[in-house]
């Protein structure tokens, strides 16, 4: 139990770090989605089932779709 939580937390921080670090938006968004998914698992471990469901549906599902639809419409300038 405790070990699982530690692994998940490390993974959480890792995915957040990657989401911030990568310059390409697509990778960042995928890492953000993973971040939400890990967060969902952590919420479940902390016995917050409602919040876990909301985070899974909104954070990992809807937010990702909205982010994707946003970056698909963005034109990049000459250089990035």
């Amino acid at each position, binding site marked *: 139990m405790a070990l699982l939580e530690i692994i998940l*937390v490390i993974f*959480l*921080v890792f995915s*957040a*770090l990657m*989401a*911030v670090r990568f*310059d390409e*938006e697509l990778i*960042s*968004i995928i890492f*953000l989605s993973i*971040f*939400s998914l890990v*967060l969902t698992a*952590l*919420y479940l471990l*902390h*016995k*917050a*089932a*409602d*919040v876990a469901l*909301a*985070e899974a549906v*909104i*954070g990992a599902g*809807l*937010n990702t779709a*909205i*982010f994707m639809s*946003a*970056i698909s*419409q*963005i*034109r*990049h*300038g000459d250089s*990035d």
Partner: protein
Amino acid sequence: MFNNLIFIILFMLGFYALVMKTNLIKNVIGLNIMEAAVFFWVISFSDIGGEVSIHKLGEKAAKFNDPVPQALTLTGIVIGASTAALLLTLIIELNKFSGTIDRDKIEGLND
């Protein structure tokens, strides 16, 4: 405590992405991470080792986790999602005018 540390690392990471990154999408991601850090802290702090706060019929549970912070967090998550959508909409519109999402290259944002 362990959870405080994680909260502060994530919060500062999000804040860093919000303030220092010049990519506007990254700023939104930073904001999302910031909010998620706060919500995670709330949930982990209110976890006192009880059950999921749902009664089981015919059983009397010994100890529940506090339902109020969870309710507040739920509200916060939904508001966060709608603000993220609004922000991204504005970024799309801004991109149509300026052709970039780099904060430094959009005049008027680089201060």
